């Protein structure tokens, strides 16, 4: 009840509408709903670490998807040499990518913190190209994928029979959202990160070492997306350009949610995943799925600026 009272009327309306849509879809196109939540889960999961960097360090990391792709290769490579399952490889990936993130920050990002935004974009775009070319040199452009039997496990619910494994992305997105929120609210580094994101000069004046905070958050974000890459590999093939669509989608989700709003990144990811799956479920219209993503983005941004004008 207290939660309900805290929501504004517009939010309640939105909640009811989205619940209504969910119920309708459950009756009409249950497979699209399931597929959408799974796809959307992956989008949300990948977008969260990017939102962290944008909210705290204030940089749009265009190499985000490439770090995910490299994480997938890392897990593949570990699997080939040690037989490690990609889901277990997430742990060494976390460590290796924390170091890679720190090195990237110290060698490149740190020098561009005071540069104009366009230069920062170009810089991270350059990092993305280096990452993709590196993968190309090491593993060629051939798609790679380990054989894992557990990803084909399925579930039966009433008359529905569907692949259950991919819900791992949906669940992980929610778990990561909860963990990141706790980290930002409860730990000293997390609170420092929020402070730096809201006012870097204010943060310096309360005794926060903002350079160390930038470094820690950047390397945390890359560690997370590297481990997510390992998880990505369980159901998807990896190739040098496998990551770049996710950079774009992550950025769109964050633009939808508003900077610093992590929960909306996740709900937005689910919503867009469902919208895409719905379009894909009409035979012959599959090519429109990518358009949907950007159409929803444009609609929401226009809607927001319209509201601002009338307010």
């Amino acid at each position, binding site marked *: 009840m207290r939660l309900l009272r805290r929501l504004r009327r517009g939010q309640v309306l939105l909640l009811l509408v989205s619940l209504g849509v969910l119920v309708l879809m459950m009756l009409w196109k249950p497979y699209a709903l399931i597929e959408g939540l799974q796809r959307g889960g992956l989008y949300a999961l990948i977008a969260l670490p990017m939102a962290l960097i944008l909210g705290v360090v204030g940089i749009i990391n265009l190499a985000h998807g490439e770090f995910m792709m490299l994480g997938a290769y890392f897990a593949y490579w570990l699997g080939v040499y040690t037989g490690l399952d990609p889901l277990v490889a997430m742990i060494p990936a976390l460590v290796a990518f924390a170091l890679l993130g720190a090195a990237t920050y110290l060698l490149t990002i740190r020098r561009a913190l005071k540069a104009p935004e366009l230069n920062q974009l170009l810089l991270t775009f350059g990092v993305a190209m280096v990452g993709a070319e590196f993968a190309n040199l090491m593993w060629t452009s051939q798609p790679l994928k380990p054989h894992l039997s557990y990803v084909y496990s399925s579930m039966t619910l009433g008359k529905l029979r569907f692949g259950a494994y991919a819900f791992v992305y949906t669940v992980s997105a929610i778990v990561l959202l909860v963990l990141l929120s706790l980290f930002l609210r409860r730990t000293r580094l997390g609170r*420092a990160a*929020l*402070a730096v994101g*809201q006012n870097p000069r*204010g943060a310096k*004046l*309360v*005794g926060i070492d*903002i350079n160390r905070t930038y470094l820690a958050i950047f390397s945390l974000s890359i560690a997370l997306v590297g481990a997510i890459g390992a998880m990505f590999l369980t159901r998807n093939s990896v190739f040098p350009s496998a990551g770049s669509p996710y950079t774009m989608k992550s950025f769109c989700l964050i633009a939808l949610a508003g900077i*610093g709003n992590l929960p909306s990144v996740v709900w937005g990811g689910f919503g867009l995943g469902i919208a895409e799956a719905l379009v894909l479920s009409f035979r012959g219209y599959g090519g429109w799925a990518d358009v949907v993503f950007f159409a929803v983005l444009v609609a929401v941004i226009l809607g927001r600026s319209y509201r601002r004008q009338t307010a």
Partner: protein
Amino acid sequence: MLAVSKLNHYYGKAHVLRDLSLDVGTESVGVFGPNGAGKTTLVHAIVGLVRPRTGDITFDGRSLLRMPTYEVIRSGVALVPQERELFPYMSVLANLESGAAYIPAARKGVPEALQASFEMFPILKTRTRQLAGTLSGGEQRMLAIARAMMSSPKLLILDEPSLGLQPSLVTELFHKVRDIGEKSAILMAEQNVRQSLKAVSRGYVIENGAIALQGPSDELLHNDHVRRAYLGL
């Protein structure tokens, strides 16, 4: 405690601090001057937000010149900036807590420090959950002062604390600055010479980046130049 000697600072070609020297012991000291005199530049140089070209700044015998801002703050200096620099999307309480959270020496005394903040500014106690960005300008000023005091600084620097406050609050504010002066040393930059002189025991007048005049408060109060230029007498 604080000694600034022969400081020179330039923005491009503009020479904004000229051989500026001043010192603060354990008392309260005022820095007065018109718009653009260099007051903000001076206090920013002390906490390391700007790097002067020549001169020296020492605090408790240690040079602050190459220290990053966070180290200056952790060594016992707190600044209430002219622009307040709060965290707009954090609650009043979170802003207050941030004042002590990153100062190892202040972390233990948070409950007492919070109580002292609420005693000094009772309005903050009724607003603990409100976002700092939604406070009025005057309330934000009080929060900025309270946040700086959360670190129990040895030296509190205030940059034009009376800016944007209604007249009755200005009087009250300078009373509070005086109370704070019982516990901490104070360096206060101000344009409201008439009222702020009562809160400090000594003062410097800066004009065009250089010290034009200095002395005990009552001496400045009776100085002809101060009376004509700053008190409108």
